[in-house]
């Protein structure tokens, strides 16, 4: 009778032990589970000879130590996994996802380059400020407001500059011209209630660019002209953000479009000044995150004078929603290149040794 009870006790301990094995990670269980069960059986057989007390003591010790063993085992496993993640992250960092050597020699330390980048913003800001604060009565009616005169500051010269930029493989100074033109077309589309069309065409262009990158990567290399364009973007994706920021003059005009004459407050001038300073700061930053921060900060800063102008006329923050919406759109579009540019492909697009500029 005593032996039979002891045998059942041993069977119970073995069964419970098999169950607790399921608490271990599957890989560990499949590798060591059987061995652990066998070791326990052997030790139980030895304890059986010493009597029931020894069997109970062994079982209790085994189950008592199990949680600590589980914790140790899982900690070890997590540490191992963490090492793998860290290794992966450092590997990703070593192969820059977003592109470029942070100190690429793309002209950001050149005053001449900086001037070229600021030129389109000055070409937009000066006529806007002039027509706003010093109206020219001798001008024909159709050219007296900044929007009327836009074809000169946002149409033909930027188109010519962009053409030159395309021929030269899109150096950084060419991007704001594209933004100015894009802003102009967006303004026209908004006036004619055709924003959906503008967005559709833009989406098609972006889709085609992605397709081009894929084909270049997996099919046959694109012709040199397109490779140079891809290389230009791949060298520094913040160039696309700078291109988006090129539409800032239109952003400012839209934010100040509140039916009150802009020339009656200095806020529009402040916004234009903030725009130009933003580009200067962007041009002097050496790291991409700082460049992007400069553009994001600048875009937000442009809106502050617009809000102040609105408050000046209406006496409250009533109906400033559209300025907030503009700001959100601007920030989203500035960040977009960071998220969507397939830099691994784009950097491959760059012909070897394309230092540019």
């Amino acid at each position, binding site marked *: 009778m005593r032996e039979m009870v002891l045998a059942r006790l041993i069977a119970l301990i073995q069964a419970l032990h098999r169950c607790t094995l399921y608490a271990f990670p599957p890989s560990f269980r499949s590798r060591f589970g059987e061995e652990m069960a066998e070791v326990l059986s052997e030790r139980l057989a030895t304890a059986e000879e010493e009597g029931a007390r020894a069997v109970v003591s062994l079982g209790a010790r085994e189950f008592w130590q199990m949680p600590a063993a589980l914790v140790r085992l899982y900690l070890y496993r997590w540490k191992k996994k963490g090492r793998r993640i860290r290794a992966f992250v450092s590997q990703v960092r070593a192969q820059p996802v977003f592109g470029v050597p942070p100190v690429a020699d793309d002209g950001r330390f050149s005053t001449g380059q900086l001037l070229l980048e600021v030129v389109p913003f000055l070409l937009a800001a000066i006529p806007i400020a002039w027509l706003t604060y010093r109206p020219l009565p001798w001008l*024909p*009616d159709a050219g007296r*407001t900044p929007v009327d005169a836009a074809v000169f500051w946002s149409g033909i010269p930027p188109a010519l500059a962009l053409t030159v930029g395309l021929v030269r493989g899109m150096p950084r100074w060419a991007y704001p011209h594209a933004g100015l033109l894009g802003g102009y077309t967006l303004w026209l589309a908004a006036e*004619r209630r*055709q924003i959906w*069309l503008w967005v*559709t*065409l833009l989406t*098609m*262009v972006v889709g*085609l660019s992605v*397709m*081009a990158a*894929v*084909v270049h990567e*997996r*099919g*046959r290399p*694109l012709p040199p002209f397109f490779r140079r364009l891809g290389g230009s973007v791949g060298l520094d994706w913040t160039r696309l953000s700078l291109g988006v920021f090129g539409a800032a003059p239109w952003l400012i005009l839209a934010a100040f*479009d*509140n*039916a*009150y*004459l*802009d020339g*009656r407050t200095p806020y529009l001038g402040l916004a234009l000044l903030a725009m130009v300073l933003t580009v200067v700061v962007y041009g002097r930053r050496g790291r991409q995150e700082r460049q992007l921060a400069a553009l994001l900060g600048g875009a937000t800063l442009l809106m502050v004078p617009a809000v102040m102008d609105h408050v000046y006329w209406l006496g409250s923050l009533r*109906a400033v929603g*559209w300025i907030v919406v503009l700001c959100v759109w601007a920030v989203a579009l500035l960040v977009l290149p960071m998220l969507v540019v397939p830099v691994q492909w784009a950097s491959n697009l760059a012909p070897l040794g394309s230092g540019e500029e």
Partner: protein
Amino acid sequence: MGMTTLYQIGIVPAVLIALGGLLMLRSAEDERGQRRLSLYLLVVTALLLLVLFAATLMAQRGNSPLWQASSLLMSSITGVLALLVLRVRRLAAMGPGVKLVALLLLLGVVGMVIAGLGGRFGLMFYAFPGVLVLVLGWALGRRFRVMAVLFAVLLLLALFGLNSFVDAAPAERTPFFDALGMLLSLSMFILPGLAVVGGAVLLVNALRAPDGGAATVRRGLSILLALALLGYLTTSIFWASVWDQTSDGLGGIFFLMLSAPVAVAAGMVMTVALNGRRRVVGLLFTVLVPLLLYQALERGWDVSYHAITEARAERIAQALEAYKQREGVYPETLDALTPRHLLRVPRPVVLRGESWCYQGGDDFYRLGAFSREYFSTPVKLRVYNSAGEPDSVWECEERTAEMKERYDWSTGDEVVVQSPSATPLPPGEAAGEAETLTPLPAEGETVWGSWSPDGAYFLLGERDGGGRTTLAFLDGQSGERCPAPGDYAFSPMTVNLRERHAWLPGGQLLLVDDTGVVVLLAPCSPDREDVTPEGAAKVETIMAYNVEGGRALFRGEGEYWIFDGRTLNWQLVPEVTPNPYDAHWDNAAWQPDGERLALSRLNGRDASEGSTLYLVDGASGDVLREIPLSVASEQSAARVDWLTPDDVLLMGPDTLRVLDLSADPPQPRDVVRQLFELDLDLYGELFGHSWWVDWERGAYILSIQANHPRNKAHYLYRSETGSVEMIDEDAHLLLRFPDGQMEQWPRPEAEPAEEETFVMVDVTTGERSEALTITGHTPRDYPRLSISYLQEEGQLAVASSQGVSLHSLPGGERLDFWTLAGEGFSPFLRPAPDGSALVIVRDRGGVYWLPLH
């Protein structure tokens, strides 16, 4: 955005799709790339058709999304369908999955056509014929290259023949059409597209031909022939559009719509068919050829066909003078000028198929043509050049009636002058227990004038079936009508006698009808005095009159006359003549005291030459000052009105200015920007403007209603203080001026509602009333109510298609309501100046009288 603009923008997706196709070809080696291209085309076609289908679903409320989408995508759809058809063998060689997709796509297209959607998309009339023409032309032209050249020459000849046929007079065209009607219709439908395909095929054949020797020459000739085809098609579209201006035709757009989408599609096919750098030619073709065709159309609509005709007449006149110098006499016919003086005699560009009217003698000639200013204005014989005194009757003058019969729009065509009738609306809540007003009895069509200044009589009339109009004076107190002596001729379109009558200080009525007879009538008196000016050309309309000063400005044929109602004398304005073109308008305004007249005259045929402001002395007709203005619209001089003795208000399509006449030169001030200091575009951001003048004090009030997305306020400018007041209420406004006048300013973009809230603003004090609510005027067929302020009663009269109501002030309670018997659209109110009665005039309906005392 116009349809042709959308079609031009539609080139962009076509280019992007073509570039996508190139990427597919580049993505893999030959055969695999071709398969990917076929798959890509299937997917893109399905997507494009899906977009069109979605646009149809969205178009249930309005057609805008549908036509926008179809205009944008038509070229791309034509291109991808053509590419698919041209690659049908490759598709057939592909796997069953691809075949199934292609079959489903085909079934989808057929289903859309069967469901009747093809016509709505323009698929049936533009895309499918375009695909057919492109595929056939391409397949044959690429296979038989020598035939392609011959075919292109034939196309050039056929286009020439088609143009000659279309240019011919209707009488000359008829026999051809009777004999070859079907063939001509078919050729008109396919020739424009074929010309484009011919050009594309020749270019591709030339670019893919081997280099060197005779092949180079053949290549050059092919390219020249291709350019000739495309150039001739462009010229044809240009001239078709010029002629469309003369007749409101659709020839140019017809040619364009059958060729431009095919040009885009042909460019897409070229892009895929060519290889290497030659593909750039395909992309350029996709962009440049359709743009050229679209620009030909727009340019054709921009040029002045009158200017072309005048230039041609001038060339003929020079040739006639050269002939006279050589021969000593003018030729009997213009044919004598060819070929020595003119290679061919160019035709006038006014009435298609018509030639010059010419009469020549030994010492004289007259060169004219039947002409009309616009397609809807009457045909006249216009003399372009002449010399000497003719010695016989001009045959052309005798043909005038025949030409009017043939070309005038409204002659004998009842449909043209037929009025639409109003659709009855369900009665509103106030109409149930209301009294019904019956219109004043009339046997013919009613015409109406205005109240006499003392409020005793209202001018009314009836036109009989023969076009004669009898007039009557409605007594404001009794509602009885006493007939005016005689009957008068007014054109069938005249219902308002605004430019035909003027009340004079003594209570007499001055009236002018279409025959140019000017009479003086006294209400309820049999006397009728003919005061037509002697020795004057026919006078036509009263452009401006002034009750207090008793002066009226008449426009005559080539002359302005001032009539003095106190002395009954006429005075010619010797230094100013009216703008000579039909359907062009000058504008004028008297000072309230009648001392001076501001007369704004359009300088040319359109706005390009601006207008001239003449300040004319009312007594002598002398021009005191002449001021050039840049303000004008295409058919009208700047509108003008007096604000003070030194300020006039000038209004043009995009201009609203106060002109300070005390300065030399006069100083303009932009009303919106300089007086109100607002940044609003006149077009689109301004709902309207008005002005009120206190002549004695030399002051005025201007008001504007903003319609900016972020500003819907109303603004008042007071000249005395230079102050601007903003009124920003969430209600409609009623502005009450010091002399008891009231203006209604509905809130922009507000829809008619069961209860409509108004705020009354006293313009003098700036005081605003409590909101008053008007009810009982919905549903109605015109969104704006007609509201009059009855100063004597201190009430508001309100009219809509529901009826007429009276409301108390300031509470707005409805005091009475009348429905209107009979047919007609929304009525408008004409209150008697003394407040004794209301005359209610119903558009396309009767006239009602409502006594108020």
